[in-house]
């Protein structure tokens, strides 16, 4: 057993942290926050040049062929920096779906484009309120033609292609669902931007009207592929959330050391100290759960479904907790637009919903533990 990242991986982390500190300072995040551009194109290009976009994509498809542990390391840094780029949609969702289910031709077409930063991808799963469930997929596919509306679709307004979940049967079973690949710039697609909690990451509504699409994976296999994609993304997002939680904790700590009230640093009051200690505790639990998820992901272990759900819950809670109390430590300053606290608060709460809600994952975790115990 060795429950830690390797020295090479730690070096990669340092490299990513340095890169992001330089290319993605809060000032850059704010350009997107203030709506001046939908995402940071320069940063996206830079990430491609650093090889970060294709870190887990095999070399034969234009990636670095490193692996998921390396991707986890980078995800954490993306979360710390609150990077305003379509990283999670493209890399955790679209690329992973292609890796799991894409045909050789599909992989050859899209994966190199992802690695080089030329293509942005996303997953179009949700249709209004509700959580991942075959029942909630109403968009239909017949003879390779899609009809229906997806919403919200993360980064939908800037994506070049989407993996779309569609209903191809009505038996009431998981096998009613199939996946399709759609080029969003082609005909039959109408995209509308939607306002959302976290303006540093766009959300969109995409309407498909008699839209031509090619299947991704076998017909009827859609739900089982999606489940795998969501589990992988849960671990990767957990690392982003851990990075965000740590950053929020650090901001709070630094402010508590600096800010003087009553003639002493506010960090010398136990109310503040203990609040920060509790933030540290939840961030640590989340980190440890995420490490386990990373191991399960990187070895494709049978434990992945359970490990992914645990990492997801723990990291969601930790990020929400740290982001919220970081504002509290900052007092009035924390409630200004000018301070960065709200950026993390927004991201934390948006990320809590992106792959399905906390309640959904709680339910999944217990289901999975129960199945394991029964086996």
């Amino acid at each position: 057993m060795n429950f830690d990242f390797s020295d090479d991986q730690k070096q990669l982390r340092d490299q990513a942290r340095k890169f992001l500190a330089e290319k993605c300072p809060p000032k850059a995040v704010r350009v997107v926050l203030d709506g001046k551009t939908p995402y940071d194109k320069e940063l996206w290009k830079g990430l491609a040049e650093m090889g970060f976009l294709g870190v887990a994509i095999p070399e034969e498809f234009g990636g670095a062929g490193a692996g998921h542990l390396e991707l986890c390391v980078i995800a954490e840094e993306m979360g710390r920096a609150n990077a305003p780029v379509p990283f999670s949609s493209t890399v955790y969702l679209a690329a992973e779906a292609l890796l799991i289910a894409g045909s050789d031709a599909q992989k050859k077409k899209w994966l190199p484009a992802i690695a080089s930063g030329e293509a942005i991808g996303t997953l179009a799963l949700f249709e209004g309120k509700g959580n991942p469930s075959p029942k909630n997929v109403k968009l239909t596919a017949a003879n390779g033609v899609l009809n229906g509306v997806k919403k919200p679709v993360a980064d939908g307004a800037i994506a070049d292609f989407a993996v779309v979940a569609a209903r191809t049967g009505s038996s009431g079973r998981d096998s009613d669902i199939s996946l399709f690949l759609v080029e969003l710039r082609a005909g039959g697609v109408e995209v509308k931007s939607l306002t959302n909690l976290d303006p540093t990451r766009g959300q969109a509504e995409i309407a498909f009207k008699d839209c031509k699409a090619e299947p991704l994976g076998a017909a009827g296999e859609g739900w089982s592929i999606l489940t795998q994609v969501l589990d992988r993304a849960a671990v990767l997002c957990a690392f982003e959330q851990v990075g965000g939680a740590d950053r929020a904790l650090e901001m709070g700590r630094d402010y508590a050391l600096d800010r003087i009230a009553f003639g002493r640093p506010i960090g010398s009051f136990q109310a503040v100290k203990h609040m920060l200690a509790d933030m540290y505790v939840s961030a640590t639990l989340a980190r440890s759960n995420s490490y386990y998820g990373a191991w399960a992901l990187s070895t494709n272990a049978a434990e992945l479904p359970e490990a992914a759900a645990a990492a997801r819950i723990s990291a969601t809670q930790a990020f929400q907790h740290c982001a919220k109390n970081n504002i509290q430590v900052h007092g009035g300053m924390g409630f200004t637009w000018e301070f960065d606290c709200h950026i993390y608060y927004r991201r934390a709460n948006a990320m809590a919903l992106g792959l399905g809600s906390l309640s959904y994952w709680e339910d999944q975790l217990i289901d999975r533990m129960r199945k394991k115990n029964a086996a």
Partner: protein
Amino acid sequence: MNFDDTPQEAAFRETARRWIEANAPRELHAELSKSSLGRIRLANHDIVDVGKAWQKKKFEGNWACLHWPREYGGRGATPIEKVIWQQEEGVYGKLTQPFQIGEGMCGPTVMAFGSEEAKRRYLPKLASGEEIWCQLFSEPSAGSDVAGLRTRAEKKGDNWVVNGQKIWTSGAHYSDYGLLIARTDPNVPKHKGLTMFFLDMKSPGVEVRPIKQANGMQEFNEVYFTDVVIPDSQRLGAVGDGWNVSLTTLMNERMSIGARLATGVPEMFELCSNLMLEDGPAIDDPAVRSKLASWAAKSSGLKYTSYRTISALSKGERPGPENSIGKLVSGMMLQDIATYAMDLQGAAGVLTGNDEETAQGQFQQMLLSSPSMRIAGGTDEILRNIIAERVLGLPGDIRVDKDVPYNKIPTKGR
């Protein structure tokens, strides 16, 4: 112990109800019902304008600042009558938002410390909403530690000359008058060198700069003072007694914030009653019910705590620090409720537009606004200190700054 109206109370309620029915701006009812913390936005109206119109109407009908004496614009009503009024006013009460600081904090301070002449001049216009007041206490280096404030007031003949900066002043941008606490003597320990004033916000040298909030709105401000002249007649209380005067304001602040506290529970209950989850109505789901029940119990606990206070008040007792629990409990609860409401909406919960799936973004706004409830008017931590020290009698924090001359206290920060 009696929760029912006495015959007099019932008669009062009936009168109030009839007057409201005849006079309230009903066209706003639907929009106001949908608004909650951080989201009083009317599609075709400015809240200050409609607020002023409603306030004026109430004033003319003798329904403004009910518990104030008649000569100052009130009705001389009892605390219980005031509660009855608030119950009947219902959603229209949300229109009083711009006046709450004036009615709840500035008015009572002027009432307690102003000259008779000042009271007669300023209070009726405050009550009628014609003049809006703000509270100029917090400074960049003095929030929780208000007594650490630096804004200077120096005596020049019959006037005071004020220089310095305030921050977080809610409503300063639309206020006509302000209650200002300033340092008049930096050579004595910090609580002893303060003095309270009120001033015309249009005085030369007052500059108001709006601050954009974390929730995207602009409701609070920085206020700069450059050689602003305030006549000594606008001093409230003795020179150097400003801390005592401010405690009156702050006690009243707690009371007024406490009274119309948003908890998020009614909105949440409504959401759960209408929302369909995968397996059926949200309200039938045991996990949802368990959360709702704990919140409902907290919110009713708060409500009845405030009734107990009102009963005490109506026997002539003063509002005590027990009231601090209101904001402490509801601030955190609002935040939790908003988070959970979005959780129930699932992936669509992230959207903030006027979407049907997200109940018009009501909870999303609540989430973004709720952090301020835990900070404004005393942070959660300060409120816990108050409860521990003033209710339970525990010792205060060890103080390094209390008996030291103000200009000898170490400073650092913003």
